[in-house]
């Protein structure tokens, strides 16, 4: 009998600190599998955000740098410009990337910075206990939108891939989900493509992964996947928004 599925090498043998059923864990694994398959662990440097995944520097086996909230793309830029032959990725939540880090994200894309961004959109600030994120859905109840997000007051959720697709420096902007086996496999492909584009020096690549936050959504793990399907995917359509190497949605 052969092992057909096991923990990737690029994940250290350290248990995740995420809540039960939180899909951050799946996404971590996909990144690690990609690193394994591309054989790049030794020259990969990851950048951890501020958010629930802040301590992913304890999980990934490659070298890691923890960045200030929202500034991961700038830190990654420093790392990449310093040693261009390294593979540099950031792993960021929606608060980190799409709120406080908006300028850093947009300008990494503007510069066509040759880095890979794994963007985990769970429509909420997970780590701080469930406040509205710029990606929180219309009418979504959060700690800071106790009566539901009122779009006429707090605005409509931001669609990051669509926005970044307008920039020339963006090589890949794709949105995926991890709500079922097939989508997880697609997500993996997208992440791998993003890393490959970096190896090929094509510029800035971002994969937006729709993810769950059972704890702050107040749902169990399975219900959370359903909520993601029912609410997030309609607002955030999956697909390729920009791909310098292929077809774009």
């Amino acid at each position, binding site marked *: 009998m052969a092992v057909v599925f096991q923990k990737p090498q690029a994940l250290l043998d350290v248990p995740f600190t995420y809540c039960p059923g939180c899909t951050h864990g799946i996404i971590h694994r996909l990144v690690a599998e990609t690193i394994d398959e591309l054989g790049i662990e030794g020259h990969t440097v990851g950048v*951890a955000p501020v958010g629930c995944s802040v*301590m992913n520097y304890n999980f990934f086996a490659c070298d*890691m740098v923890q*960045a200030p909230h929202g500034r991961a793309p*700038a830190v990654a*830029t*420093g790392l990449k410009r310093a*040693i261009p032959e390294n593979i540099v990725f950031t792993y960021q939540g929606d608060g980190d990337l799409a709120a406080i880090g908006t300028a850093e994200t947009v300008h990494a894309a503007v510069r066509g910075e040759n880095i890979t961004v794994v963007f985990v959109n769970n429509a909420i600030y997970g780590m701080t206990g469930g406040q509205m994120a710029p990606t929180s859905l219309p009418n979504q109840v959060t700690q800071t939108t106790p009566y539901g997000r009122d779009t006429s007051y707090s605005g409509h959720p931001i669609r990051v891939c669509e926005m970044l697709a307008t920039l020339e420096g963006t090589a890949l902007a794709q949105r995926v989900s991890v709500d079922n086996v097939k989508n997880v496999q697609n997500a993996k492909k997208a992440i791998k493509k993003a890393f490959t584009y970096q190896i090929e020096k094509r510029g800035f690549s971002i994969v937006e992964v729709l993810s769950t936050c059972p704890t702050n959504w107040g749902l169990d793990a399975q219900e959370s996947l359903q909520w993601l399907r029912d609410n997030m995917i309609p607002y955030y359509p999956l697909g390729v928004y920009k791909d310098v190497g292929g077809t774009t949605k």
Partner: protein
Amino acid sequence: MAKVLMKGNEALAEAAIMAGCRHFFGYPITPQTELAAYMAKKMPKIGGVYLQAESEIAAINMVLGASAAGKRAMTSSSSPGISLKSEGISYIAGSDLPAVIVNVQRGGPGLGGIQPSQADYWQATRATGHGDFHLMVYAPSTVQEMTDLVALAFDNADKYRMPVMILSDGMLGQMMEPVELKTANATDCPIEKPWAACGHRNSRPHNVINSLYLTPQALEELVKKRYEKYEVIKKEEQMADEYLTDDADIILVAYGASSRICRTAVNTARKEGIKAGLIRPITLWPYPAKYIEKHIAHAKAFLCVEMSMGQMVDDVRLCVNGRKPVAFYGRTGGIIPAPDEVLNEIRKLTGGVK
């Protein structure tokens, strides 16, 4: 090497390059623009990185990244830009990363003005961001020192693994003086950095650059270790220049631009028969307390002169600790005091006669 005339900003840039700096990340702001422009011109020619960031915040975080990768990295700005960098600087300190940050000070608060100032002393020496930490802070007073101190800054940043600030001002940045550029460092990474996040190349455990410690005990331990290092620095790294202090009755204390004015005032005072002297701190943190201590016994009074409403004077008072009177004279808003104004203060303190 023969002396050449260079602007302070440009001389500093050239010296940084000679010190092995190949990674500069900036954002335009007066009166430091020439520094970035110089880097923009030179770096591409020597295979270095000049990158104009989208903001000061991005720039300091690019420095964090490049430094994490093991490179000598630098950024420069002026007062409002330094405020924006303060979170990042606190992270750099908390991650034990070397870095050199230049503040070519201008008048504040707010948008303020663009003329020279020394009103960011407290920010530089006590609170360039949140939490318990320090930067080393060097205060050049000539264009020559703009170059000499930047080399020292890089060396000590690496040696102590901490951010170092060059606290300059618009006058020093904009003026030209003859300068002799010292010999260059061969490499942009002169010392081994086994801690760097440069890719483990499958030959060592992964390195992590981080400032998060959720267990207070772990955080305290780390901070305390850092403060032990600070104690070493306080012992080893104090620098100051003394001028006619040996027999001085009244000792001026001033750094950077204002120290130059004080020197002139001291000379004039001496001509009037007043025994004035000058201590010019070169390190602002660690504060050169031992230089002041030496003279407390014989000095009758200290006069601290700053281009601010009075900031370094706190440190002078903390050193003197009530043993002698400490007076203050300051101009703010971008005004460089005239030697005569300082002379007047000296006269006041000495009752007008020797």
